[in-house]
Structures are given as C-alpha cells and as structure tokens.
C-alpha cells in the first residue's frame, strides 16, 4: 500500500451488502488526505449513510480493504477499535443523543470516555455549547430541545474531543440556512486545525460554501469520480494547521 503513506483513509474495492440483499455499495475506491474537506452527495438511498458507517466503524465491509491512520482495518482485532473510534468524531443522521442526559452531559461524553477529569471538562464543554449557541440550554434534556438544537448538540459532541476525522451525516438537515452556514464554519475551523472532514448532504448550496472542498458523488451504490481527484488527488499543503498564523 505505497500510496497509503500520507493518506488518512483508503478504500480499495469496497463492497457492502446488508444480509443477503444486493450490494448497497459496490467497488468503492478512494483516498482521503489529512486536512481535506469532503462532501459526500447523492440521492436518497444512494448509500451515503452506509458509506459513513464504514468510516465511523459501525459496519464492516463485506468485501474489499479499508485502511485508516495507516492501519489495515479489516484485520484489526475488535478490542483495538475503540482507539480508532476515539480519533473519529461522528454526527449521526438521527443524532443519537442519550435521552436521560442533559445537553452538557451529552457533549461531555467523549471527554469522559477518554478519561478526562470533571474539572477539566467544564470549560471546553461550556465553550462548545456557547459556540453552537446553546449555553442557555445546557441543562436541558434532548427531548425538550428543538430538532435543530438537538442537531447542534450532536455536532458539539462530535467535535469536542478534536477528532482527526469528522464524519457528519446530514449535519445541517434540521437547521435554518443561517445556522447551516454557521455550523459549516465550525467544521471549517476544525478543518483548519487539521481535522479531515467528511460531510454527507443533499444540499447542493452547501457545497459552494466551502471553496476548497472535494466532492464525492454516490449513485446507486457506485462512487463516481469523473476527474480522478478522489483516487489520485492533487497534492495539497498538509497539514494546513501549520501554515496558520
């Protein structure tokens, strides 16, 4: 795997089927480079969520090879996967907030999982809630939050531990255009700090808001890569966080 040297994720002829159905993803091959910003688009049912599930390790492919952070994922023992997951931030399409925990405790979860002390947690979580505009709702349970507010809690939880890869499934589906742009700015800020971002979305307007982004298009389980930019991407100055003043 010579080209995997500076890649962060590599898919090689990956296929996925649920049970004995036909493949929902076929012959998926691409390389993600650290510090890049990717949009994943495609019609409903094209397989966007399925592909993200492979990325956030909720699903193993039925065929093909995936490597991540320079390790072959297929042969990784199960007990080493939590360490991979902690390097990935995920915004689930259905949020998956823990219903009996407050917004604050939901956002704090990744930090607690990684063993941070209670006193260290307070400020970053409060800052993150302020960034997504939910300081005043930090004690609210998810059930008492609006759809857009829940989505912002889910996003805050995904980015709080500064993941190396951020995977977001329709992260702006439930918020107004203004908030969508604001959340996109959050992803860009994270991206500038070196995080590789993958955002699945229907919203074509969103794609134009991030000029440097690369676009992956799924069509009925096939990845179209007309320019070859995904398989053989143009060289970028990476990691970009080092060129920030």
């Amino acid at each position, binding site marked *: 795997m010579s080209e995997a040297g500076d890649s962060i994720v590599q898919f090689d002829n990956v296929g996925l089927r649920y049970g004995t159905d036909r493949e929902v993803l076929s012959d998926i091959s691409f390389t993600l480079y650290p510090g890049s910003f990717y949009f994943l688009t495609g019609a409903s049912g094209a397989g966007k969520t399925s592909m993200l599930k492979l990325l956030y390790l909720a699903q193993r492919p039925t065929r093909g090879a995936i490597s991540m952070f320079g390790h072959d994922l297929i042969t990784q023992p199960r007990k080493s996967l939590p360490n991979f997951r902690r390097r990935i931030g995920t915004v*689930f399409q259905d949020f998956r907030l*823990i219903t009996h925990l407050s917004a604050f405790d939901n956002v704090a979860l990744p930090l607690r*999982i990684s063993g941070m002390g209670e006193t260290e947690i307070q400020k970053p979580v409060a800052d*993150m809630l302020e960034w997504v505009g939910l300081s005043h709702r930090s004690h609210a349970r998810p059930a008492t939050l609006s759809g857009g507010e829940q989505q912002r809690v889910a996003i805050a939880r995904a980015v709080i531990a*500064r993941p190396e890869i951020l995977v977001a499934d329709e992260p702006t589906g439930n918020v107004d255009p203004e908030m969508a742009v604001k959340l996109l700015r959050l992803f860009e800020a994270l991206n500038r*700090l070196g995080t590789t971002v993958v955002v699945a979305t229907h919203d074509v307007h969103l794609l134009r808001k991030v000029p440097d982004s690369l676009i992956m298009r799924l069509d009925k389980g096939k990845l179209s890569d007309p320019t070859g930019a995904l398989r053989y991407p143009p060289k970028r100055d990476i990691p970009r966080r080092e060129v920030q003043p």
Partner: protein
Amino acid sequence: MALGPVIRRGSPRFGSSASRMLPQARIAGPMPWVIAIMIALTVMAAGAGLALSNVAANARAEIAGGVTVQVVEGAPSARERQAQRAVTFLTGREDVLSVRRVPDEELSALLEPWLGASISQSEAVPTPVLIDVRLSGPVTSRRLRDLRAELVREVPAARLDAQAGWLAPVFDAIRSLQYLAIGLVVLLALTSIAAVWLAARSALGSNRDTIEVIHHLGGTDGQIARIFQRSIGMDALLGGAAGLALGVGAMFVLGQQFAGLGSGLVAGGALSLLDWLAITAVPLAGVLLAILTARITVTGALRRML
C-alpha cells in the same frame, strides 16, 4: 475556539461520572426490593440452618459419654437414700469421670412449664432424682448393659440410659430441619440468580441506546460494562443491606422468643462469630452475583456489535 485537549488511548474508568451515564431513578425500580426480599429470606433460612446445626453439635458434644441415671421411687425418704447410694457407687468407679446430681430446684424448674409451679414443688407428683454421669470414653451398649446390671444390684430403683439414646428422635428431627433449611437456601439462591439476571437484562434492554452510543464514541467494552456493574451493584447493595437488616431482625426476634423458653437445648443454638460472618456473606454474595451477571450480559450484548 476552545477545543478540548485530546486524550484518546486506553480504557480509563469513568469514576464519578459513571453514575451520570444511566438514569438515576433506581430506588423506584423493583430491583432493590426484590433483592431485599430474597436476601432476607435467604438470611433467615441460612440462620435457621446454622442455629439447628449448632443445637445438634452442642447437644451431641454434651451427651457424648453421658448417661443419665434416674431413681424412680415413690416414697421420698427411700428415694433419697437410694439416690445417695447411687451417687456413692458411681463416684467410686474408675471408668466414671464425673457424677452430678441434678438439684431438685433445677429439676422442678425444668418441669415447671409442663406441670406448673405449685404442683412441681409439691410432693403430689413424685419426681425422680436425676443424676448426670459422664463416663470416660464412648458409651457402647455393652458397657451400658454391664453398668446397668451392677447399678441395679446396688440400687434397685435406678434406671440407666445413654443420653444419646433418648435424644435420637430429636436429632433426627433436627437433621430433617437442617436439610429443609439447606434446600430453602439453595432454592432461594437459584431464584435470586434468576431475579438478578432478569433485572440486569431489563436494565440492559432499556439502556440499549446508551450502550450503542457510548460504544460508537469509543467506549471500551470494559468501560460500558463497568457503568452497568456499578449501577446494578448499587441496587444489589441497597437491596442486600435492607434484606440483611430484615432477616437479622427477624432472627433476633425469634431468638429472643426461644431464649424465653429457657431450654438448654435452644441456648445451644446461639450463633457464633463465624456463623454471623457466613450470614453477612449472603448479601455480599448477592452483590457479587449481580455484578457478575451485569458484566456477562453487557459484554455478551456488546460482542454482537462491531
């Protein structure tokens, strides 16, 4: 923008925050109460079993080598004479360790519950003289026969019995009760296991989402299992403590009532420190069982996820 520093490796314990991962409303649930009742019943059954085995052991030790001589004679003066002769005869023998004539007051106190104070102290009902004799070595039937023959030649009104002999039916009854107690403890333990198992499974079922989310955020199986172990362990500890208090309370009340009977046999049933430790171990075993069940159930469910 302030983003948290990144600590990612290993499987640190959640510590104090573990309690914030699961719903807090525990006491309201049936789990601690079910456990409390099971533990109380188990404690009582175990306590009764231990007390019975103490009664049996004490009595057996007391009467090993023991024979009882009764002097049954209607006329008080003749009875007294014969009794004294029996004591002299027995004291003189080499194979006799000790001879103790049970004082009349003790005897009438013993009989009082059955005959009433006025009657047992009057001469209306002639009571025999009892002599406790302790032989050196075990009491075989041959020794007993020889001794009896010699004694009766000397003291015609004397009757001699091995103490173990006339207590045999009592021992049998105690043994059956012990088996009953052991059976009860086993049945209760099995039911407790089932109850704890069901409770752990239902706790798991109603928190499946939580488990999945923590799993997806990089929580290890160990971390997730510990959250549940902690929560279910606390339930079991609460229930166990309440059950122990209930069971010990009931045993104490019963003990007082039996002590009121003033019988030496029942006093022999007093529990030793070791017995109390065994009884305290019942709720602790319950807690361990609950924790183990939680661990097995949770890790089993997690293994089915990637």
